């Protein structure tokens, strides 16, 4: 009886996992590539700009865009930028924070976006080379979320 149940569970996992991998791979082939060409980006350097920007407009024109993290969350919460833009996150929340790829807590949607811990006042950055929509959060307060749309 137990062997049958184990067998059933294995078949279920293999079928679900295999089917999912197949569908996932096919959809990845059809969608835009999301791997950036640059990922040496983990840093604790000071941000070059502390000002926050409008979600669109200005951000689209610049090669570097600043996102601030305050007690009320990422500001701007959503930015739209051109491919090749460097996005710099600066922590002004008064507490340790992270920039981590969704979904919480596994951070697997876009691993280059796992920029690690930033102390209060510190910054991290990533250059987005490929179009796509990248969602992220602060792992230490996962309700704090943000989105980068790369066009």
């Amino acid at each position, binding site marked *: 009886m137990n062997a049958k*149940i184990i067998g059933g569970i294995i078949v279920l996992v293999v079928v679900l996992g295999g089917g999912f991998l197949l569908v*996932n791979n096919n959809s990845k082939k059809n969608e835009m590539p999301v791997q950036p060409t640059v990922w040496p980006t983990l840093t604790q350097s000071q941000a070059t700009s502390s000002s926050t920007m409008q979600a669109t407009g200005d951000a689209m024109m610049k090669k570097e865009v600043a996102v601030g993290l305050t007690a009320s969350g990422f500001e701007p919460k959503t930015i739209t930028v051109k491919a090749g833009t460097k996005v710099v996150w600066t922590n002004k929340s008064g507490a340790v924070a992270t920039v981590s790829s969704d979904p919480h807590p596994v951070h697997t949607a876009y691993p280059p976006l796992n920029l690690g*811990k930033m102390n209060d006042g510190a910054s991290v950055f990533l250059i987005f080379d490929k179009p796509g929509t990248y969602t992220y959060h602060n792992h230490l307060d996962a309700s704090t979320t943000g989105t980068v749309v790369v066009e």
Partner: protein
Amino acid sequence: MQLLLKTPKIQLSLLLLVIFITALVNNWSVKPIIPLIATLLATSIVDLAFLKIRGKPIFFPTAAIATGIIIAMLTSSTLPLYDGMLAGVIAMISKNFLRLEERHIVNPAAVGLFLSAFIFGHNVSWWAVSFQQFAIYDLQFMIYFLILLSPALVSVYRMKRHWIILSFLFTYGILNQILNTFLDPTFLFFSIVMLTEPMTTPNNHTRQIFFGIFIASIVYIFSSMAFSAAFPDVLIAALLLGNILFFKLR
């Protein structure tokens, strides 16, 4: 007192408290202490009350204390106090009443965290086991976290639950083509402390391996789906599903 210190749950609780304190020091904040006390009171008092209701002998609530500390470690201190307390109450309801064959079916801390996060519409935080996230300049955090976890690993080995950890971490690492799951403090804490809860996991080594593979596969599938955002936490969702499906296979 000496007898109490020899119980696995109290030893685990002391270890968890040390990790909790290191998290406080690292975050330079005493704010999580009040939620910890509130959650501990909720789990302990409710567990004792439920034991009384069930007509069981009253004993020192070692399991409730360990559960309370785990909940406090994974619940953000920015949330209202009642959030963690409700998680504790749900955990104790699950431990005392969601039972078959004299055993609880699902990991109490996991079900408490999952349902309270679902009710209040937030994620499970994992705040106390997140600051050690691996980066070269933070190597020292990872090293002392591993040192702190090592007694738990020994305890898991004594309870013969180590195959669950190994099969889970290997499978998840392979599925995601990443090997740093072995250096991710959230994954290490989840696999060593939560995944190996003796009452809700298989005893047999082969079944333990299947259990670990199953949980890793479900985490991978859930986290890759768009609907994963609807879950308070994919790790805990997978654990609860595994507990239910493998209940008869212990």
